[in-house]
């Protein structure tokens, strides 16, 4: 009759080829533990005191340390503290071997950085079960670290690719857009109504692609942590006034007007281009989602050491339950533009990141009598 195997064969054991450092001044204990571990395929190294363990650790680099508490020289707790101090987060888990099992000692061991303890005398099955659990945790943690590293590499590669693609798409799109305008404005001769319609479609399509590409490029810069602000002292009122001027030209087609009423606010340190981008985005959204003929009101005030900008539209407001989507990447709400305009769902997400990079905040709220107000604030003394 074949003997019944109590343990799984070494080839399938979780402990196979795992390195375990035994630290005990008692040779008999050491032999018992080695006798439990070696049949599992574990690679066992032995140290007979704390000092020897500290010396052996860096060359052996164990996956687990079994550490006696009472030893001549530095004791197990001190050894454990030093191991943790020297090897930091990468240090192998430490299980204490203790003859005493009073709760105080256990607590001291856990506080010293141990993950578990094995009471003497050993019960082999229990010892093995505990050792397996901690080796398994160690393996999972290693795998997790590897995955995180792989993912962050993959994410960086994705951001690079996105940036490159967006960059290479941008120039041709800008040319298509401009050349279609030259066709439709008669620069190169008159077109028939049908030709004008087709050229208009080319223009619109290239414009929305260009917007998307620009936003993807912004997002890839922000997500890869490469966003750099070039702050200089600027008048926020002047900056907004210019943006309102440009937005009014574009809004004229919808019969919409933008009105800017600033209060005096001191100059502040900001990246002009980035804040202009935020303002332009909020203004174009306000026009986009308000019915034709609306009046958009823009305010600027100093409040609690912040410059606060408010853009109030006459749109349908933020639908109930969709508030969370507003500032998320690709987070479009169910509200549709009123003039057939395009929306990528990236604009506000980018605004939020740009404002937060300035140490400011952005939010939006519905007004009780209709429409909603987008508000951002920038610290007056960043």
């Amino acid at each position, binding site marked *: 009759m074949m003997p019944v195997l109590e343990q799984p064969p070494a080839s399938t054991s979780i402990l196979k080829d795992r390195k375990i450092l035994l630290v005990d001044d008692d040779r008999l204990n050491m032999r018992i533990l080695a006798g439990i571990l070696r049949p599992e395929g574990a690679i066992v190294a032995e140290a007979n005191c704390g000092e020897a363990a500290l010396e052996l650790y860096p060359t052996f680099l164990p996956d687990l340390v079994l550490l006696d508490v009472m030893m001549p020289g530095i004791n197990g707790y001190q050894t454990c503290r030093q191991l943790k101090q020297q090897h930091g987060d990468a240090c192998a888990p430490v299980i204490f071997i203790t003859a005493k099992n009073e709760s105080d000692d256990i607590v001291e061991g856990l506080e010293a950085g141990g993950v578990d303890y094995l009471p003497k005398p050993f019960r082999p099955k229990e010892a093995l079960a505990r050792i397996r659990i901690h080796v398994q945790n160690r393996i999972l943690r290693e795998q997790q670290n590897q995955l995180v590293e792989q993912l962050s590499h993959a994410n960086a590669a994705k951001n690079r690719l996105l940036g490159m693609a967006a*960059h290479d798409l*941008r*120039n*041709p*799109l*800008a*040319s*298509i*857009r*401009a*050349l279609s*305008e*030259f066709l439709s404005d008669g*620069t*190169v001769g008159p077109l028939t109504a049908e030709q004008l319609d087709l050229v208009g479609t080319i223009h619109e399509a290239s414009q929305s692609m*260009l917007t998307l590409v*620009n936003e993807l490029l912004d997002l890839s810069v922000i997500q890869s942590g490469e966003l*750099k602000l*070039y702050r200089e002292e600027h008048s926020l009122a002047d900056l907004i006034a210019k943006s309102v001027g440009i937005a009014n030209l574009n809004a004229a087609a919808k019969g919409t007007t933008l009105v800017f009423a600033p209060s005096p606010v001191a100059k502040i340190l900001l990246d002009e*281009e980035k804040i202009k981008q935020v303002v332009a985005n909020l203004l174009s959204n306000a026009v986009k989602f308000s019915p034709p003929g609306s009046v958009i009101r823009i305010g600027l005030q100093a409040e609690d050491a912040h410059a606060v900008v408010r853009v109030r539209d006459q749109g349908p407001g933020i639908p109930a339950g969709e508030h969370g989507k507003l500032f998320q990447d690709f987070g479009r709400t169910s509200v549709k533009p009123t003039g057939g305009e395009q929306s990528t769902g990236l604009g506000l997400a980018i605004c939020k990141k740009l404002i937060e990079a300035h140490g400011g905040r952005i939010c939006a709220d519905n007004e009780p009598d209709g429409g909603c107000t987008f508000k951002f604030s920038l610290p007056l003394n960043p």
Partner: protein
Amino acid sequence: MKFEGKILLVDDEAHIRKFVGLLLRKHFAPTVLEAGDGLAALAIYEQQQPDLVLLDVNMPHLDGLQTLDRLRKAYPDANVVMLTSLTNRQTVEECLRLGAIDYIRKDTPKDELAAQLQRIIEECFAEDPPPTTASLPP
């Protein structure tokens, strides 16, 4: 102000030369010379001595910065405006340090681009007018 000087347009991408060239001819009606790379630009500059150079930054062989540097060393009075596709602040600052007057972004809508160029040309030639048909006040 109607600018009637010669403009040298340097970009390795033919579609950009086509679009910016059309814009220059329409709004400024100057002689537009074109070059597809930095070396060709230097050769044309030497022969034709244009009043203004619009210079792309990213080009193979001799890039915009190198071209700008060589051009300004040979012709310290050369008026160069950089054509960029990205506002990479470092590159822009380097261009200005090397003597470029200003920069314009290629993805700017064409009417805005024309307005920016108009402003740059007016500022650049305000005191030292190039060949121009600007009408004098009566």
